[in-house]
């Protein structure tokens, strides 16, 4: 089990990572999610032993790693652009950790073929990295990391350089491969979709600190504050009276949000057009997407909210419409 305690890293006196603690049990995938510049990559590099710690400790299975250099930690690190070795073939890249370990040639060859099969690139061994697409390079980089049989795989924005469609497909593959190979992994990303698709647990980082940690489901259902909610993809955050009104419209007793300063976060689909919905408002904007019609609606007494409607609903800007509330798609925030 990886255990990180009060870890801090400073750049020129400023904390880039500030007192971060978490545990990562064997076999699980933890995603550290945060906006760019929040210190998540630095945290990853500190775990890898590439950044000196200002304070705190990193331990694996109870062993403190402070004096263990990167190459003896038994981890593997995969970067955004894969960082393949250009002067070696695909098989040469994947077999690199095996050569470091002096694995006999036939065994290494078999292992490389197996790994290429696992990442969906069978028969690519003789290709040069330069001839591969971005997605293929990331698959090779993943195979190379897995060849090291790392006790912990560190992934630094592994899919961020890819285009959207490929990213979604590869995220599912990555999850399957990590589960199949029973790899413990620490993933760093700014893309919540990537985190949801790949990870079991999630830690949300903001300005050098971890502000929330839990299973993906826990974090998703109960973001600790409005900023985290916004980052996780909640479209609207309401406070005070408007929040109470929306919850009441959903059928909750208003008591639950009586505490002043409480807020409620709404996913876009928490409010949807329905002819008998309890809320009434005027459409300010409407945009067609393949799945749904995305609306911005001005609700009197509540304010502007995001909502959805069926794509074939004839809703135009200026129309008065009614909205219903799906409480399953809202989250009450503690602050």
């Amino acid at each position, binding site marked *: 089990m990886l255990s990180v305690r009060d870890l801090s890293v400073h750049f020129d006196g400023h904390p880039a990572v500030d007192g971060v603690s978490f545990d990562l049990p064997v076999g699980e995938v933890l995603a550290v999610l945060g906006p760019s510049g929040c210190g998540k990559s630095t945290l990853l*590099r500190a775990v*890898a032993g*590439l950044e*000196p710690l200002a304070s705190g400790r990193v331990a694996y299975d109870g062993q403190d790693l402070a004096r263990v*250099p*990167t*190459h*003896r*930690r*038994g*981890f*593997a*690190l*995969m*970067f955004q*652009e894969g*960082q393949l*070795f*250009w*002067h070696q073939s695909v098989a040469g890249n994947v077999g*690199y*950790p095996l050569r*470091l*370990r002096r694995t006999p040639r036939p065994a290494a060859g078999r292992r490389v073929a197996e790994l290429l099969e696992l990442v969906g690139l069978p028969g690519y061994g003789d290709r040069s990295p330069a001839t591969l697409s971005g997605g293929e390079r990331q698959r090779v*980089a993943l195979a*190379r*990391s897995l*060849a*090291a049989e*790392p006790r912990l795989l*560190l992934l630094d924005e592994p899919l961020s350089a890819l285009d959207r469609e490929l990213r979604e497909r590869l995220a599912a593959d990555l999850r399957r491969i990590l589960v199949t190979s029973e790899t413990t992994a620490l993933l760093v990303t700014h893309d919540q979709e990537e985190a949801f698709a790949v990870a079991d647990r999630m830690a949300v980082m903001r300005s050098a600190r971890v502000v929330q940690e839990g299973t993906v489901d826990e974090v998703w259902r109960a973001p600790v504050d409005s900023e985290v909610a916004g980052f996780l993809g909640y479209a609207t955050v309401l406070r005070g009276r408007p929040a109470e009104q929306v919850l009441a419209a959903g059928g909750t007793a208003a008591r639950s949000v009586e505490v002043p300063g409480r807020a409620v976060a709404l996913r876009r689909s928490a409010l949807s057009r329905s002819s008998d919905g309890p809320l009434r408002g005027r459409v300010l904007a409407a945009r067609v997407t393949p799945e749904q019609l995305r609306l911005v609606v001005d609700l009197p007494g509540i304010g502007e909210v995001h909502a959805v409607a069926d794509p074939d609903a004839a809703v135009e800007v200026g129309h008065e419409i009614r909205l219903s509330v799906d409480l399953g798609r809202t989250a009450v925030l503690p602050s």
Partner: protein
Amino acid sequence: MIALATIPVATLLVFFVLPVGGMVTRGLWVEGSFEPLGALEVLTRSRTHRVLWFTVWSAAAATLITLVLGLPLTFVLYRLRLPGRQPLRALVMVPFVMPTVVVGVAFRTLLAPSGPLGALGLDGTPTAIVAAMVFFNLAVVVRTVGGLWEHLDPRREQAAAALGASPWQVLRTVTLPALAPAVVSAASVVFLFCATAFGVVLTLGGLRYATVETEIYLLTTQFLDLRAAAALSLLQLVVVTGLLAAAHLGRSRREQSLDRSSARSVARQLRRSDLPALAASLLALLLVLAPVAALVVGSLKVGDGWGFDHYRALGSRREDSPLLVPVSEALVNSWKVAVDAALLAMVLGCLVSVVVSRTGRGRRERRTLAVLDGVFMLPLGVSAVTLGFGFLITLDRPPLDLRSSPLLVPIAQAMVALPLVVRTVTPVLRSIDPRQRQAAAALGASPLRVLGTVDLPTVWRPLLAATGFALAVSLGEFGATSFLSRAEQPTMPVVIYQLIGHPGADNYGMALAASVVLALLTALLMAVVERLRFGSVGAF
């Protein structure tokens, strides 16, 4: 676009191809008939064999040692966060522009029986020559490899380390292969410079140890054996062209395979495993400092005491002086010549750079550009002695009678400096994304406006740096100038060579003082260039 190249091409034809060609044909044609075999006879002489062998092994040994010392030094200066990194980089750069004659004098002072390292008994040995070559070329390795190493994405090495590679394994399996093109390119340029070294070998080797270059000089000036000299020049030309082509291949491969990290520095803190590299760097820095220190100390030594007498003697001419003019006048003359030569080299070099930095449309145009790029590198490797002597024998009759023209020396020096200017400016022009120019044009900028608003803001520093570089090279040029300068208007390197050629402690002391002055001047120029914070000066 290619039309722009006509002026530099014409200049190169008249002032480079014509003299060198004239020199070569002079050797191959005897009384109007083509007799190459007669000239080739020189290649069968045992002295020629000795000279060839010495040229090859001394250059190879010097290249190897330069790499062994230079690579750790590059690592230390470009990848470690050390105090005083900038001044150290400038210091390492100084030898490269130090006049060859000055370097020769410095090493003689250091190694002479009465000198600080006299006990080693290295005076007049091949070891001294090789050491001087290493001294010179450390800068080439540091600059060429450093430019790449500084921006090499450290994450690839970190990925390897995380996969379990020890620092040594990372170096061997990741870093060195990534640097290989730059190392090969640097090694070929160093070998080229060593194999064509002139001033250093002439001052340190005398008649006993000659390279092809000094042999050409001796054959032309001492034995008047033009045929033999022509044969050696021709041989040198062929080998040099081959080497340049190899260096060019390495360079284009490097440009393709570069995936640089962002501009921010990737230097890291010192670690225990850096100790061997630090030790090697210390040795390299000592090699750079020792001769310079010996030179300065020697110039201040008057009889048994110390003083500035030798420096004062530079201002006037003694009765028994072997010189026709005071050294101070030679300094002024050197500076004037250098300004003319640098101006000429800059004008021509910029024209060439603008042309060769464009991406050609279609394969034929691209090939033409590649050939142009290569052709302007030729003066880098062709014996400056051949060039100088060629000037004398081809530019001596109308319509080109330049024997008495004050422009003769500047033109010859400009030819020598031209490749360095092109190599400095071209990469910068190439680094400007053509889409920026297109964007400016699309926004309504005329071609001149594009040049002024897109190219100029990027290149003005490199242009100034290249000018300083050309000035420094011109100030130290000796091979061609030794033929062309007139006794009443000598340049500093010529004066220094004359002074050490005459006996007497005063003459030698003056030579040292003059060397210090000249070295200071070039070091000052390089300091200005370094202040411009421009990395690729001297990167080939």
